């Protein structure tokens, strides 16, 4: 049995703005920091989701990517929608924040609001909460994207009953951000969309990491 996986849409973070299916959907604007840039992008996307502001930068970036990807077209079968996210730098932004809080020699004071984000798979939880998705979810830490491996995980998820996948790569470290996201559907018949393949993953993974700076 072979089920084909087709890409419904593709999102990339390129030079500080979001692109969906090759077209820019937000614009780059001058911001003080990556954190300010994230808020600015949130506003550009007209999201009404206050929980966004409680998240760390990694989860914010992931949430923005999925927002651009999914928009109003939330998956019709939330129980059969899988989330598969790859990442290289884990939850380093929050790990450092937590470490700083507990290393204070005078008053070590860990914060639960920071600690909850010291796991990269909290991204998956945030995506699941935002779009009410309860299918299978997996976060894979990898130094580089290996298209064969990404493709294999996607196929395994589809084989285990997921009819749709949110599949991507999200990294935040210091002022650097990297994200791409694919919406993939299982399809048996003919379709005009492109088929998920290792070559396609290679292509989308090809965009460079974006470093926030004051100039574009």
């Amino acid at each position: 049995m072979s089920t084909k996986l087709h890409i419904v849409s593709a999102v990339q973070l390129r030079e500080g703005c979001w692109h969906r299916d090759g077209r820019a959907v937000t614009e780059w604007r001058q911001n003080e920091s990556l954190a300010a840039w994230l808020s600015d992008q949130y506003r550009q996307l007209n999201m009404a989701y206050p929980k966004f502001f409680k998240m760390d930068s990694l989860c914010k970036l992931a949430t923005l990517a999925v927002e651009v990807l999914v928009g109003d077209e939330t998956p019709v079968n939330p129980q059969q929608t899988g989330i598969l996210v790859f990442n290289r730098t884990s939850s380093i932004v929050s790990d450092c924040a937590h470490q700083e809080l507990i290393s204070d020699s005078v008053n070590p004071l860990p914060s639960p609001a920071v600690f909850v984000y010291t796991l990269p798979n909290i991204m998956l939880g945030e995506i699941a909460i935002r779009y009410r998705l309860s299918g299978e979810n997996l976060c894979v830490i990898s130094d580089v994207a290996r298209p064969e491996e990404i493709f294999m995980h996607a196929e395994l998820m589809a084989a285990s009953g997921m009819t749709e996948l949110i599949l991507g790569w999200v990294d935040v470290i210091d002022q650097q951000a990297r994200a791409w996201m694919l919406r993939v559907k299982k399809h048996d018949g003919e379709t005009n969309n492109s088929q998920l393949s290792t070559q396609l993953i290679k292509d989308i993974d090809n965009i460079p990491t974006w470093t926030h700076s004051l100039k574009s």
Partner: protein
Amino acid sequence: MPKGVVVTGMGVVTCLGFGVEENLLALKSGRHGIAPPELLRTFHHEMPLGEVRADRGELISRSGPTHPPFWSRTALIALIAAREALQMAQITPNHLTGLMNGTTVGGMDRTEDFYPGFMENERHGHMREVFNHDCGGTSEQLAEELGVRGFLASINTACSSSVNTIMLAARMIRAGRIKNAIAGGADGLSRFTLNGFNSLMILDKELCRPFDQSRKGLNLGEGAAYVVLETEEDALKSGKRILARVSGYANTNDAHHQTASSPDGTGARMAMEEALKEGGLRPADIDHINAHGTATPNNDETEAAAIRTVFASSPPVTSTKSFTGHTLGAAGAVESVFSILSIGERMMFPTLRLENPLSEHPLTYVTSPENRTVNHVLSNSFGFGGNCSSIIFSRP
């Protein structure tokens, strides 16, 4: 026709001891391993921990890695447990086609030792101490030391990490992508974890009491556990002893909150239902449940609610975290090993200190070691981020 996947070897290190035998002895005799901190340097003396009773030097001499300075506590206990699993399975590492490792803190303990001195003086310490800080580094050094050259993966889905590694390995074998694999996970205790969990206010200063009305929270533990998985066909051909079949598994997201479970345990319920479906089993087929059972008010109540929904009549439920504490990234694999032991030993291990079970969702609990033939055992592991996994092991 998908291939049947079986377990032919397992290894475990927890506060109960080194190896399957020592752990089994403690479980059978109802002797837990949770005590005030002795090895972790922390000012939280009031927090009981399930520490592996060996300092760094002893762990190194027990495991004998090639370059000890690069090895963290997590990696050292991982190596000991992985070696035991491989030995039991009588498999040489160069015949292994996969290693899947779950961990949440990786080499954090070494990093914590390294930084205070380094921050004072940049010439202090060696970078090799933090070289394998990240989760992937731990998996890679483990694979290299063991000589496993096939597929390598690190999974961190918090407290469900290592059950997800077993699930990944089983699926890849079933799909014919790899022949066999060693899968499991490890987490050594660190101040990072202890302080973090303390800030969430889900630690108990007393010994934890899973499913008890008086439960206040969990005790942290550390540990490592691995299983060797191969196809039933290969195992039968080589005449190996098969410890258990992996008959069903599933992973879902609770989609409710970063750290808390939904009131009715939706994610947990779906994971158990899907695992049963995958295994072609009915709820009545399950003889025993090794629960996630962390002893936090939220987990135990929502897990009990979910079990009640799936099982019209509750199979005997236990939480072996009352023996080991919560070993986080290792918990799923540790409890998989204990579940497989329940099958082999025909014994259900008790939940210690359970006096007044929570009343809202009544379940049947194991409160003293019980001799009983266990044919199908379901083990739950739930992680922060809403990650819920269930796995079913069956008598071969």
